[in-house]
């Protein structure tokens, strides 16, 4: 009797399980040979949806969702629905490899928007290359992200440009602050940016008095800050991400450090302001895009974004929105439903690679995007923002030449 009961229980469980409709967004069929339902087109979005960079991930997800929604409401891509598949790399290279493999071997996914963290893009680079699938990053700025692979692209500037830019800005526009200390995150992004900054600082004779590293595992930075305080710099440049930057700024103010803080695009998140509170006042940072300088198209998207999610979009939402638009355009122009997956993936790559002059470039809300031979974006400017009364404001002095 009891045995029968267990058998029936198991059978009913199997039936219930089997009747579950497959979750379209996550349940891919990696081994299947078909490209799935031909009326739907799949694009992967990889980013740090959990972990210490999760605030970026949230914006990336929303930026991608907004663009996909707009495309689908306008009738999809050539009448086919665009479906996003999200992969959480948690901002770590280990997870990024798993996500890259999942996307690359998923027979339905045509292209990937991501990753965000430079370490993640670098970790995924070879996997995307081997499998022949495009990865278009809306956030990785490390110099070598696109080098050596025909399949990786990005729609924002590189750290060598950004690091050089910051050093020059401090030297020429913030002349009343002559000495600088650097505090950098010991990962690909933090080190790369620091190297570019240091090299330029040396060249233009900017007085650099200290350089200290930190680890993202840690939440206490008082030891490094005390060492820096001993050198008495006028500016402290944080080469890292917003979470640690907020802690650093808070702890610095508690130690009585009055220096001006300067951050790069990694600090550009509303969560920096929320977490650092009043201690963030006066912090400068560079960013690949600011809605204040974006024009009419950008403000329209910003309004739509706010209506949809209840918060204002940030830089990363805008860049992801554009990256998604570029991929969608590439699919629209090249997709052939009778062709094999590998050929469709290759056609997307070839289309992106053909955007190599200002005339050919993609006109998005973040400006004109076109690629050099590596897949790096050429000639996109950097903007400077400054924190005033707990808000990011476009800095009065820009350096756009």
């Amino acid at each position: 009797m009891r045995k029968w009961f267990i058998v029936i229980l198991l059978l009913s469980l199997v039936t219930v399980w089997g009747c579950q409709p497959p979750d379209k967004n996550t349940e891919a069929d990696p081994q299947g040979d078909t490209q799935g339902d031909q009326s739907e087109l799949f694009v992967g979005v990889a980013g740090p949806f959990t972990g210490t960079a999760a605030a970026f991930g949230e914006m990336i997800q929303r930026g991608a969702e907004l663009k996909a929604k707009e495309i689908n409401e306008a009738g999809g891509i050539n009448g086919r629905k665009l479906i996003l598949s999200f992969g959480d790399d948690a901002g770590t290279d280990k997870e990024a490899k798993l996500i890259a493999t999942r996307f690359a071997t998923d027979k339905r996914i045509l292209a990937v928007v991501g990753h965000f963290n430079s370490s993640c893009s670098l970790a995924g680079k070879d996997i995307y290359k081997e499998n022949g699938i495009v990865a278009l990053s809306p956030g990785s700025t490390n110099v070598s992200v696109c080098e050596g692979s025909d399949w990786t692209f990005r729609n924002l500037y590189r750290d060598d440009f950004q690091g050089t830019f910051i050093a020059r800005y401090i030297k020429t526009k913030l002349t009343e602050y002559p000495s600088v200390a650097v505090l950098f995150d010991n990962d690909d992004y933090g080190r790369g940016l620091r190297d570019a900054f240091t090299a330029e600082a040396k060249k233009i004779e900017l007085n650099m008095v200290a350089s200290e590293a930190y680890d993202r595992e840690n939440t206490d930075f008082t030891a490094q800050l005390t060492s820096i305080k001993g050198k008495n710099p006028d500016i402290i440049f944080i080469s890292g991400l917003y979470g640690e930057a907020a802690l650093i700024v808070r702890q610095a103010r508690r130690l009585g450090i009055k220096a001006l803080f300067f951050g790069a695009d990694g600090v550009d998140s509303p969560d920096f302001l929320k977490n650092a509170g009043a201690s963030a006042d006066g912090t400068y940072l560079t960013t690949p895009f600011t809605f204040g300088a974006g024009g009419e198209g950008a403000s329209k998207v910003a309004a739509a974004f706010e209506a949809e999610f209840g918060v204002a979009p940030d830089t990363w939402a805008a860049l992801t929105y554009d990256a998604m638009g570029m991929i969608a355009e590439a699919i629209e122009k090249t997709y052939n439903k009778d062709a094999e997956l590998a050929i469709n993936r290759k056609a997307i790559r070839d289309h992106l690679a053909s955007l190599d002059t200002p005339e050919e470039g993609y006109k998005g809300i973040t400006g004109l995007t076109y690629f050099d031979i590596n897949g790096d974006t050429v000639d996109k400017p950097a903007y400077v923002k400054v924190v005033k009364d707990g808000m990011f404001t476009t800095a009065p002095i820009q350096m756009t030449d």
Partner: protein
Amino acid sequence: MDQFYQQLINGIVLGGIYALIAVGYTMVYGIIQLINFAHGEIFMLGAYFAFTLVNFTPIPFWVAIFVSMLFCAGVGMLMDYVAYRPLRNAPRLSALITAIGVSIGLQNLARILWGAKPQTFTDDTLPTIFQQISPMKEPKVFFSIFGVTFTDAAIQFSENVSLAYLDLTIIVLAIILMVSLNRLVSLTKIGKAMRACAQNRIAANLMGVRTNQVIAITFAIGSALGAVAGVMVGVRDNIGPTMGLHKGVAAFAAAVLGGIGNITGAMVGGLLMGLAEVFGAGYIDPMIATICHTIGLGEFYDSEKISHSYGSGYRIAISYIVMIIVILIRPTGLFGKASAHRA
């Protein structure tokens, strides 16, 4: 020299936090020889609980710390009752693995309840002296005495040595709690029962000590202290589901360094770990630089050429190196006594 004193203060603050957590590990180990890996999660829950209280109820911050202590004491006792008590006479490995399981479970529970994104106590939920300090405002001086200036931002010992009120509170709380714990264990009846259980649980039970009750109280006390540390770290840094991991492991190392099972050892061990971490981060780089320059390898150490700065990036490793050295010299830790069943 100013820098040295400031690093000393930084180290003591961090050490105080480690000590508060380490006591929880060591008390439980002393009584049931269990390394309670879930203790770091209790610390994390303490921070989250106080955070939730100040954000969603009108309870003021100081009361929230107290309520959070009670809550964590309850969670600690519940954890013992549900997970460890059924395994009291099972092999020690079973309980250890259960502890790891509880730790992973609680960490993910926090992730579900509060999200993966690190949170911070915002200014409106904190007492004035803990709030963020704007660099735009000049600090208001309250008064000066013997060259020590009290401002609304911090206590200035000299121009470059200061102690924020938040850090002062951490040190004071750590001292008060440690001293009361010490008194409790050495002077009260329950303290005596704890010591009896630590010496020999079966014999204590035969003498009429209710060992299960004593063990539950031990969990409660350790968890309450962990909660205080959690709230203070939450205010000073931030709160995240994995905050218990790093601080917990460091505090466990502190307990081992001091001699696991020994409460004084945990306090001293915590302080030492904090100081080692801070001084390692602050002084290893200049030390390597000096050594390189004296032996004529100044070329080798050009701080602008190398991308890694040696000390500050590896501060956690430095404190573990100190621990390993101590354990190599004194396998029982600083205050531990060699005994047969600890092997």
